[in-house]
């Protein structure tokens, strides 16, 4: 369902790229379509998802968190327990296998928080592919641990000093590399953004999250959840858990964007809540931009949400009202972060801490029969320095 053959979800998506990339996108689309009729590709994907990535990840009933909130039961989809510490491995593995199948030996990728870069570096090491990661200078500073992890696994990390020196600029630079080296290189894009077929393909690789969640909750509780909540930067973990539930109209889906220092300031990263339609990085979607159509600099305490665009499918789901999008501030995310640490002994990444905060807020107004699933998309080890600084703790 959704997405026509030109990669449109309603009015959103498409291909807005330099002509040079068209043959590569067509080759990628054909290769991806080809896997659908090829059970061996998916058998290998599933086998490595288990043995390498550690899937299925648990669906955990967070009892103390639920009791603390005093309302609905909160379950956590533990993507933080996947190999390399976040859901990003699902897509990196899928695209890595696809690149090998296409005979592309050189892999490039962008990264914001570093989680996608780490996942890509891991998969490239495992598959024996060359790996180059573009990362904004500012993000390299705030996520230095992940930079080191990528290097350990053999990736070359190239710092990007243009523009805001964050994820948006890393994507620009990765696209420039791809335009230049398109014949032997696969661009392993990490979110459901970019030109067709990326939003579709990344969603499909990530939808394993939602498929497992559905099986697990049916097996454990015998019913579907009332709410599913996930954070949205580019939107890959959110679409991954939402997608298999889209036909279930009784399951309400909530995407949480980063309100940064507040939606009334310009320092946030909430294009769905506070942006307007535009074209960025190859797709038409909601974008944070100024009156002249220049892409705005964004801010979020979490590097993974610090992005002015969002996947086209989310724009579509917003417009048709299937998913509700809200925004949670830096301060609130820190509160959600600490709450999960203290009640459950789980240190979340700052990205899903946004979703945790929103879930906790909602849970208190719901009754004990109701169920909220939160996609805990990654673990927080990478964020220790940022949190310590924000909380005024000297390490």
């Amino acid at each position, binding site marked *: 369902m959704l997405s026509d053959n030109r990669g449109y979800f309603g009015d959103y998506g498409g291909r807005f790229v*330099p002509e040079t990339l*068209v043959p590569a996108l067509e080759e990628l689309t054909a290769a991806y379509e080809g896997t659908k009729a090829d059970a061996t590709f998916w058998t290998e994907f599933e086998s490595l998802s288990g043995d390498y990535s550690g899937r299925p990840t648990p669906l955990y009933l967070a009892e103390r968190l639920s009791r603390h909130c005093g309302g609905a039961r909160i379950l956590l989809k533990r993507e933080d327990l996947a190999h390399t510490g976040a859901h990003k491995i699902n897509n990196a593995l899928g695209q890595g296998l696809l690149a090998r199948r296409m005979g592309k030996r050189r892999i490039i990728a962008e990264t914001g928080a570093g989680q996608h870069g780490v996942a890509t570096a891991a998969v490239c090491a495992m598959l024996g592919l060359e790996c180059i990661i573009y990362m904004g200078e500012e993000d390299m500073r705030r996520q230095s641990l992940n930079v080191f992890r990528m290097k350990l696994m053999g990736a070359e990390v190239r710092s990007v000093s*243009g523009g805001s020196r964050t994820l948006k600029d890393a994507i620009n630079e990765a696209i420039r590399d791809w335009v230049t080296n398109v014949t032997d290189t696969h661009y392993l894009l990490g979110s459901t953004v970019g030109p067709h077929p990326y939003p579709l393909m990344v969603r499909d690789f990530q939808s394993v999250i939602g498929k497992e969640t559905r099986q697990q909750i049916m097996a454990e509780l015998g019913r579907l959840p009332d709410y599913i909540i996930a954070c949205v930067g580019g939107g890959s973990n959110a679409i991954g858990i939402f997608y298999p539930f889209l036909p279930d109209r009784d399951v309400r889906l909530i995407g949480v964007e980063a309100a940064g220092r507040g939606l009334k300031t310009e320092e946030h990263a909430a294009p769905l809540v506070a942006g307007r339609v535009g074209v960025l990085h190859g797709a038409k979607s909601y974008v944070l931009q100024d009156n002249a159509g*220049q892409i705005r600099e964004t801010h979020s305490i979490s590097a993974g949400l610090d992005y002015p665009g969002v996947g086209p499918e989310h724009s579509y789901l917003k417009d048709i009202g299937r998913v509700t999008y809200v925004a949670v501030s830096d301060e609130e995310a820190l509160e959600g972060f600490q709450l999960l640490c203290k009640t459950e002994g789980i240190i979340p990444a700052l990205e899903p801490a946004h979703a945790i905060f929103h879930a906790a807020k909602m849970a208190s107004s719901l009754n004990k029969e109701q169920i909220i699933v939160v996609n805990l998309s990654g673990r927080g080890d990478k964020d220790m320095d940022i949190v310590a600084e924000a909380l005024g703790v000297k390490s």
Partner: protein
Amino acid sequence: MSRIGPVFSQPEHKALIAYITVGYPSLEATLKAVPLLARSGCDIVELGIPFSDPLADGATIQKASFSALQNGVTPQLCLEVAKQLRQEVDIPLVFMTYLNPVFSYGLEEFCAACAKGGVDGLIIPDLLPDEGSELEAITQKRDLDLIYLLAPSSTGERIRLVAQRSRGFIYLVSVTGITGVRDRLPANLEAFVSRVRKVATQPLCVGFGISVPEQARQVAQVADGVIVGSRIIQLMEAENNLKSVGNFIKELRRALDEPNRI
């Protein structure tokens, strides 16, 4: 018909097309440079409307775009600059920019303003013909040429598509890569141009990486026009009086007019 067609109907004449970023290094420089480019032998000037995320551009134009944005350049201001330049020069003026600033302005409104200001065409490197029908209809109504690009990686099918849809000329990207000065021309350029020539009836102009008269001369032996950008930007930032820009354009002009010299 726009002013672009007649440029290519002069017998034995190779078009020289210059790109500059509006407002870089300053608005005054843009206003002075365009008449100078026209006087020195340019046939068409591409006015770059800066965009925050110029993903087809190399370091030189990225820097120029960033700096122009810092100087407060907007699409509105670029339209005003074009209108003013139209009073001073007769050669075709073409906007080159990315889709989002145009989309944000409103496709209809932007094209209306272009037509009113005497702009002759648009080049939008992130707009493929596959996504271009709406803007094509609007530009045709306003007598603007929407110029599409082709790359060495373009398949026969892509070449046919662009040949059906591009107006004014076809912009051939010389290399698989981004804009910027390069030492040498790609070896397969001649084959690429002749592949397009077999299918397209439009004039073919080659850009990306052309930075010295000898390269321009070689390109002109196979193409109908030569596009130079990053090198001009570099010269413009080097000094205030634009003298070297004028001299550079004159050298390029000579190289195109006397193809068998050297």
